[in-house]
């Protein structure tokens, strides 16, 4: 594959090609081939195979039964409430949690940026939720919302809000717990990305604005937000990509009951619990298409970064 790309390049940019030493190009091919081999064999090929499987009717339950089904699996998915419920849940979850994460993450980043002492300690503290496994985060929030044992229902009962709610057992409430668990784990990650963005804004921009009599709010609106925009965009896309793929949280919190089934979860269940390889593949491919659409925007946004890495000095 490497050789093919090299040949293509020579054809198109014959003049520039002369500057590449042939030894250098051979070495590049050699060094890149293990990584490319793994990526092609275990990512690209399986994706293609998944598309093929999604066009067949194939179940491990009845060995030997195999049939080319065309778009039957997709028609079945589009006609099922399970699929549309999962689409709704996935997007609802993504929209709410990413919005909250941005708001809380930005607040945390601004506070950390303003704190002159203990920034290193704060960074370590903020990394703790990020380090906690998603599965463990789900278990933690489950124990916080469990009837009797959980702190949240106990406090809410005392205050008189949401009495007798079984959080993980009721639609809407279960999704709320899922959002909370995600926000807790990833708002700090967002904060770190935004903090890095804040730190590259030169101080004299603020000083100049202060001199001109800009209020704190004006400085935030007119300087911080516009200059932070690239970091905000990247953080938003990172988080959106992750949220759209969410699997661990609903699996552990509710097993996908009470309106928490996401796209990844229903696809995985069809594969492993029901052993429907064809139908499960169709659901996986649909998830893939949705995520890759967002990913395309991501690659375009960080395109500048990739270019600077790809540049030869």
């Amino acid at each position, binding site marked *: 594959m490497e050789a093919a790309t090299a040949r293509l390049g020579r054809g198109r940019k014959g003049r520039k090609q002369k500057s590449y030493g042939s030894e250098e190009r051979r070495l590049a091919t050699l060094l890149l081939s293990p990584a490319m081999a793994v990526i092609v064999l275990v990512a690209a090929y399986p994706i293609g195979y998944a598309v093929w499987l999604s066009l067949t009717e194939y179940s491990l339950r009845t060995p030997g039964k195999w049939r080319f089904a065309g778009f039957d699996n997709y028609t079945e998915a589009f006609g099922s409430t399970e699929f549309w419920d999962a689409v709704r849940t996935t997007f609802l979850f993504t929209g709410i949690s990413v919005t909250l994460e941005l708001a809380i993450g930005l607040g945390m980043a601004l506070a950390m940026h303003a704190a002159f002492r203990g920034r290193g300690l704060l960074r370590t503290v903020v990394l703790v939720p*990020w380090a906690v496994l998603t599965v*463990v985060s789900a*278990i933690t929030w489950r124990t916080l919302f469990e009837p009797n044992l959980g702190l949240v229902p106990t406090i809410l009962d005392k205050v008189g809000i949401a009495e007798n709610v079984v959080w993980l057992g009721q639609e809407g409430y279960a999704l709320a717990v899922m959002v909370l668990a995600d926000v807790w784990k990833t708002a700090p990650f967002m904060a770190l990305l935004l903090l890095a963005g804040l730190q590259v804004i030169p101080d004299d921009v603020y000083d100049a604005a*202060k001199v001109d009599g800009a209020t704190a709010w004006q400085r935030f609106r007119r300087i911080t937000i516009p200059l932070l925009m690239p970091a905000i965009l990247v953080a938003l896309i990172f988080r959106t990509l992750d949220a759209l793929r969410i699997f661990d949280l609903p699996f552990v919190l509710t097993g996908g009951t009470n309106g928490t089934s996401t796209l990844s979860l229903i696809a995985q269940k069809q594969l492993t619990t029901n052993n429907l390889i064809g139908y499960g593949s169709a659901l996986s491919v649909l998830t893939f298409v949705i995520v890759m659409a967002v990913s395309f925007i991501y690659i375009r946004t960080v395109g500048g970064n990739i270019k600077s*890495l790809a540049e030869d000095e």
Partner: protein
Amino acid sequence: MEASGGVVTPGTDVRQQEKEREEARAAEGRGPRRNWVRPVLMWLAVIAIIIFCLFPFYWLVNVSLKTGSDLSQSDLVPPSPTLDNYTSVFENGDFTSALRNSVIVTSVTTILALIVGSFAAYALARLRFPNKFLLLAVILSISTFPPIAIAAPIFKLWTEFGLYDTYVGLILPYLTFALPLAIYILTSFFKEIPKELEEAALVDGATYFQAFRKVVLPLAAPGLVTAGLLTAFFVWNEFLLAQTLTSSPKAFTVPVSVANFTGSQKFEIPLGTISAASVVITIPLVLAVIVFQKRIVAGLTAGAVKG
């Protein structure tokens, strides 16, 4: 607001400058109230952040120290703290073998990702060849693949090849998902090493490989630590593929083991034991965060705001 005027020409006129400085002084000293409000607000925010980040984990530890009837009460401190849950977790053969599996799968994947990744990153950072941008874009887009997309075909292929429910069956897809980030981080670290150092080595008659091993690698050690840590965190944490591609304690990793914990009675969910197991598998990561905070933050933000 005309902030831009001040930014572009920071006071060319001396009298203007004087006036500005006076105004700034006046603005800053606007009443004694402001002088204490700001730091107090800031410290309140800092305390709120600390509680927000650490309390849930404290709560988990709290639950893990409760047994019996304590588990149906929401005390903030266990009334009769006990390590029973931890003892039973370590007596559980399935959990200890999951720990061993996770340690093996994580370390093998991390080492492979660093070797294969640094080869690729060196080529991307140092060697000149066509279509480099396209290659980097393809590599990076792999990291955004939803694991579910390859779960079905890999599940089927592994069943046919006998890789289902084995270490190798997990290491291969993990390597695929870990490589893009490792390559990205390592490439940006390699690029920061002055090229002149290697060129001097090459002039002195060293081969590319010698220049790489003796000059670049030692200087890139921080990058290797960063990429290694992020890979290890990813593998230790990964759940979807592990849940799909394993079926027995032979290859269960820790997230799978904890997520599927069942008590002595089939339908009772032993929250105390699950919490203890959760604490056990999280402690190494929290320790790593404390020791390597700087390296991890560098890695996380390298992918986001570079240059």
